[in-house]
């Protein structure tokens, strides 16, 4: 074990003018080829503590592929990486605070111990007025395994619904992200 010698660099806000500086190929579309699994749209609106849409936010998501495999060396599961799919997406909110990702429904992934985590998107929220990013998750209402999910299990019952996207179409899921106030989204200390 090595001793910690270097202090963490502090986080600072992404500011209002990030849009030209954080271009990303495929941006909010994680499908880069013939991806396996169900293609879905995940959309919603970011809302502030006064109930107003937040037009200068950026969301980033990280997710497993349809088989529940992360494209990363520390995912040692005996499953294949999907070359038609990129697990990372980035989307700025528009003038109405709306974000939208085009992706595939992730599979379940291993959790602590012998648990299984229900399909979810790890989600970071960045924005002007946010000195550091906020971490949340987006789950899907039509997944039976949500009830056994070890992370949802850490969240007070009454607040779990803030992490679960509703099904609004055959392949569309919707979840608003409320930064503060009524229906405030659960954010994680990580």
């Amino acid at each position, binding site marked *: *074990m*090595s*001793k*910690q010698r*270097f*202090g*963490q*660099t*502090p*986080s*600072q*806000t992404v500011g209002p*003018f*990030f*849009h*030209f*500086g*954080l*271009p*990303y*190929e495929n941006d909010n579309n994680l499908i880069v080829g013939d991806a396996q699994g169900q293609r879905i749209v995940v959309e919603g609106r970011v809302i*502030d*503590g*006064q109930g107003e849409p*937040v037009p*200068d936010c950026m969301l980033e998501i*990280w997710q*497993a592929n349809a088989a529940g495999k*992360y*494209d*990363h*060396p*520390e*995912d*040692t599961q005996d499953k294949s990486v999907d070359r038609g799919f990129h697990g*990372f997406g980035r989307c700025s909110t528009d003038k109405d605070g709306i974000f939208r990702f085009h992706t595939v429904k992730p599979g379940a*992934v*291993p*959790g*602590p111990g012998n648990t299984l*985590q229900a399909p979810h998107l790890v989600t*970071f929220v960045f*924005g*002007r*007025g946010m*000195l550091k990013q906020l971490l949340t998750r987006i789950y899907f209402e039509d997944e039976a395994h949500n009830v056994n999910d*070890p*992370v949802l299990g*850490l*969240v007070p019952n009454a*607040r779990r619904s803030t992490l679960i996207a509703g099904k609004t179409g055959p392949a569309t899921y919707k979840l608003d992200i409320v*930064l*503060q*106030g009524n229906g*405030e*989204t659960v*954010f*994680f*200390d*990580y």
Partner: protein
Amino acid sequence: MADVIPYNREEKSAQPPSLYMPYKSTEFRAPKQPLVILPHTLSEVTGPVYGHGRVLPIDADLTKQHAGEPLGERIVVSGKVLDENGRPVSNTLVEVWQCNAAGRYIHARDQHPAPLDPNFSGAGRVVTDAEGNYKFTTIKPGAYPWRNHPNAWRPAHIHFSLFGPSFINRLVTQMYFPGDPLFAFDPIYQGIPDVKARERMVSRFDMDTTVPEWALGYKFDIVLRGRNATPMED
């Protein structure tokens, strides 16, 4: 699958709170409910380490992205990305963006009445080498006013975005320049609780990377979270 090796947690004195009233826009954008403590799972210790798109040499030289030379003081910004244990973070994407020498962003919503520079966009990206080193050539950004409080000015800064080996390492920060008189008045800089930790965001002038007859050198090292073991050592 074996349990994952967690990363260190946030260093509280070095990281800002979400609510910091001197920075007014935090008032309605900071959660009021307690955060839920999340143990790191496979979802957090993995992250986008492949396929950051094609990064070209021109992306690392912000002075060569247009037909002519941008106005301003040419600088070379370089440094190392490492973790808390001093291990270099190799092959990771570093994205930067900044205003021009007059303090104006190319962004459509920037209303500061300072001139745009037709030869400067102000965005770059680079991937760190095997030792975690990165290097950009750019021009020194200007200070600019904002509306947070009367006569509010941001110290000159370059925005930095980093990925690191896991999603938990994701960092967006700002690099400042040594001795800026605006530090004392800037609630974004002041939002970091520990005074010494604030100084980690300040680059230092460096004669070794200063290019004779060409550009001043500034060094800025970036420290991401570490962990108490690596998967290889287990």
